[in-house]
C-alpha cells in the first residue's frame, strides 16, 4: 500500500512539474518574451515603479534558465508570480475568485452525475423500446449544444419569461442552480454514455443471468449488483471531468455574468496578463492530478477484486499490489489504450 501510494505521488508530482514547465516554456521562453513585451507596452497602465517591480520580480535581465529555476523555486513555495496589471500575487487573485467557482463546479458535478445516472438508467431500463431509443439520443444532444447556447436559452425562458431564477448572481442558492445545471451538462454527456455502455455490458454477464434465474427482480439486481459493477469506468471518467468543469466555468461564468476563476481567466487573457493565465492552468493541472490520485486510490473500495492478484488468489501479504496494479481498463471490456469509447464525444 505505502509503496504504491509513494509511486503514485511521485508520478503526480512529475506530471505537475511537466505541466508547470510546459506553461513556463509557452509563456516565457518564446522569442520576444511575452511578459517583457507586456510590461513595456504603452497601454499596460502600469506606473514606472510597478514596471520596475515586475521587471525585478521576474528577473528578465537574466538568462532564461535562471528565470526558470527562480520561478520553479517560487512555485514550490506556493507562489505563482505577480499579475501584470494589478501587481498582486496571482495566488491571492485566484484565492478571491475560487470560492464562487468551487460552489459552481461542486454543484455542477452533482448535477452532472445525477443527470448522467438518470439518462443511463433510462437508456437501459425505460419501459418501451421507443423511450429507450429516445433516451439513447440524449447524450449526443448534450454534447452538441454549446454551453453558451444553453445559458442563453435558460436565461431567456427560465429567467426573463418564467421568472423562476434571478437573472444576475445575487449570491443566493437559487441564482446558482441554473449555472450549475448548465455546466453539469458539459460532463453529463460523456458520463451518461460511458455509464449506460457499462450497465449494458454488466447486464450481459453470467452472474446477472444467475440472479435472474433465482428470481431476483430487475430493480433489486440493479441496486445490489449492476450499479456497483458498472460504476468503475464512470469513476475513471470523473477524474477527467473535474478539469473539464474548471474549463467549462469560463464560458458559464461569462454567460451568467458571474464572478469567479473563469471571469479571472477571460479578463487576464483580454489584458494579456499571462502569469494569471498560467496560474489558472497550473491550478487546473493540480486539480486533475489530485482528483485522479484520489480516484485511483478509491477503486479498491468499489471493486475489491482489484486487490486480488492475477491468478485470482488474494494477495497474501495484504499489500497494495505494487508491481501488478490491475487498473479497471484491463479487465473484460478492454479499450484501445488512450482512446475514449467510440461514440463518446470528448468535450
Amino acid at each position, binding site marked *: 500500500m505505502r509503496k504504491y501510494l509513494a509511486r503514485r505521488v511521485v508520478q503526480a508530482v512529475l*506530471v505537475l512539474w*511537466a505541466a508547470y514547465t*510546459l*506553461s513556463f516554456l*509557452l*509563456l516565457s521562453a*518564446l522569442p520576444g518574451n*511575452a511578459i517583457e513585451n507586456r510590461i513595456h507596452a504603452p497601454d499596460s497602465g502600469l506606473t514606472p515603479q510597478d514596471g520596475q517591480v515586475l521587471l525585478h520580480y521576474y528577473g528578465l535581465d537574466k538568462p532564461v534558465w535562471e528565470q526558470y529555476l527562480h520561478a520553479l523555486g517560487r512555485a514550490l513555495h506556493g507562489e505563482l508570480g505577480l499579475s501584470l496589471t494589478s501587481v498582486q500575487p496571482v495566488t491571492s487573485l485566484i484565492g478571491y475568485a475560487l470560492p464562487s467557482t468551487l460552489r459552481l463546479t461542486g454543484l455542477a458535478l452533482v448535477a452532472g452525475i445525477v443527470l448522467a445516472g438518470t439518462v443511463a438508467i433510462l437508456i437501459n431500463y425505460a419501459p418501451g*423500446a*421507443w423511450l429507450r*431509443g*429516445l433516451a*439513447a*439520443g440524449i*447524450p*449526443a*444532444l448534450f*454534447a*452538441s*449544444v*454549446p*454551453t*453558451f*447556447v444553453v445559458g*442563453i*436559452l435558460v*436565461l*431567456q425562458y427560465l429567467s*426573463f419569461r418564467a421568472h423562476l431564477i434571478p*437573472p444576475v448572481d445575487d449570491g443566493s442558492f437559487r441564482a446558482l442552480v441554473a449555472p450549475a445545471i448548465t455546466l453539469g451538462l458539459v460532463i453529463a454527456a460523456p458520463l451518461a*454514455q460511458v455509464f449506460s455502455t457499462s450497465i449494458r455490458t454488466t447486464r450481459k454477464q453470467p452472474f446477472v443471468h444467475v440472479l435472474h434465474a433465482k428470481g431476483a427482480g430487475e430493480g433489486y439486481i440493479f441496486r445490489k449488483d449492476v450499479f456497483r459493477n458498472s460504476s468503475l469506468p464512470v469513476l475513471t471518467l470523473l477524474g477527467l471531468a473535474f*478539469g*473539464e468543469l*474548471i*474549463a467549462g466555468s*469560463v*464560458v458559464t461564468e*461569462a*454567460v451568467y455574468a458571474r464572478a469567479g476563476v473563469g471571469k479571472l*481567466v*477571460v479578463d*487576464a*487573457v*483580454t489584458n*494579456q496578463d499571462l502569469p494569471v*493565465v*498560467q496560474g*489558472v*492552468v497550473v491550478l*487546473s*493541472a493540480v486539480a*486533475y492530478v489530485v482528483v485522479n490520485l484520489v480516484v485511483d486510490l478509491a477503486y479498491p473500495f468499489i471493486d475489491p477484486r482489484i486487490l486480488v492478484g492475477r491468478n485470482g488468489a488474494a494477495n497474501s501479504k495484504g499489500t497494495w499490489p505494487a508491481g501488478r496494479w490491475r487498473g479497471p481498463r484491463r479487465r473484460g471490456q478492454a479499450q*484501445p*489504450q*488512450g*482512446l475514449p469509447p*467510440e461514440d463518446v*464525444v*470528448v*468535450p
Partner: protein
Amino acid sequence: MTQLIGPDLSPEGAAAGAPSTAGSFPAGLGKRLLAALRWLAGHLTLVIAIAIVALVLLWAFFPGLFTSQNPTAVNPAEHFLPPSAEHWFGTDEFGRDLYTRVVYGSRTSLTGAAVAVAVAVVVGSALGSVAGWFGGFADSLIGRVIDVVLSIPGFLFAITIVALLGFGIFQSALAVGLTSSATFARLIRSEVLMASTSNYVEAATTSGARTFAILRRHVIPNSIAPTFSLVTVQFGIAIIWIASLSFLGLGAQPPKPEWGLLVSDGRDFIASRSWLAIWPGLTVVAVVLSINHISRHISRGRSS
C-alpha cells in the same frame, strides 16, 4: 451505439439500406426508385443531417445566393425589428439583417473549424507517426508531452495559446487545432505501431524502400483511415470551441460576422430582443448535431 431519433436503425431500415440489388440483374427503374425511396425513409435523420450540413457549406461558399443584403451595412431606421418575412431572423441594434449575418458568419465559423481540424491532423499525424515508427526515446518524449497536454483541460489550453497568439479567428483556430492534435497523435501512434509490424511494411522494407517512402506510401495512408470518424467529431467540437472563444471575445473580432460573436452580441439584449441570441445559437446547435450524427453513422459503418 447511440442514435438521435429512433427509426433510423430499425431492422427494416438497415435491411433496405443494404444494396440488395447490387450484383443481381439490372432491375427495373421503378424498382430501383422504390429501393432508393425506402433507403431514404430508413435514413431520414441522416438525410436531414446531410442536408443541413450541405446547406451551411453552400452558405459558406456562396453567401450571395442565399441573401441579397450586406452583412455589415448599417441601417439605423430598421434597428431591432423582430423576425418577419422580410428579415427572417430579425435585425440587430444597427439595423443589420441577422439572417444575412448568420449566412456570412458560416464562412468564418466553418473556415475556422476546417483550419483547426487540418492543424490537428497534420501536427497530430506528424507527432504520432514519429512516436509510433521510431519508438524509443522519441516515443517516450512525445508520449509524455501528450500526457501533460491532456492533463490540462482542452478549452483552457486553447485559451492559453490564444493569450499568446492574440485574438482573431485564425489564432483561435490554430489554438483549437494544436489542442486537439494531442488526441490525434495518440490515435495515429497506435495505428502506426500496428501498421509497422504488418506484412506489407515488411515486404516494402525487404524490397529496399527507404524509411521515409514507407512512411509516406504505406504507413500513413493506412493509419489515416481510422481517424475519419474522429475528424468529423473534432470538426463539431472545433465549431463549438471556436464559437465559444468568439463568444468570450477572444476569437473573431467585430464587425466580422461569426456565430459565437453573434450570440455574444445578442446576449446584451437577451431580456427584450431574445431573437438576436437565440437564432445564431440554434444554428450552431443544428450544425453540430448534424455533424455528430453523420460522424456516428460513419463510425457505425466502420464497426459493423
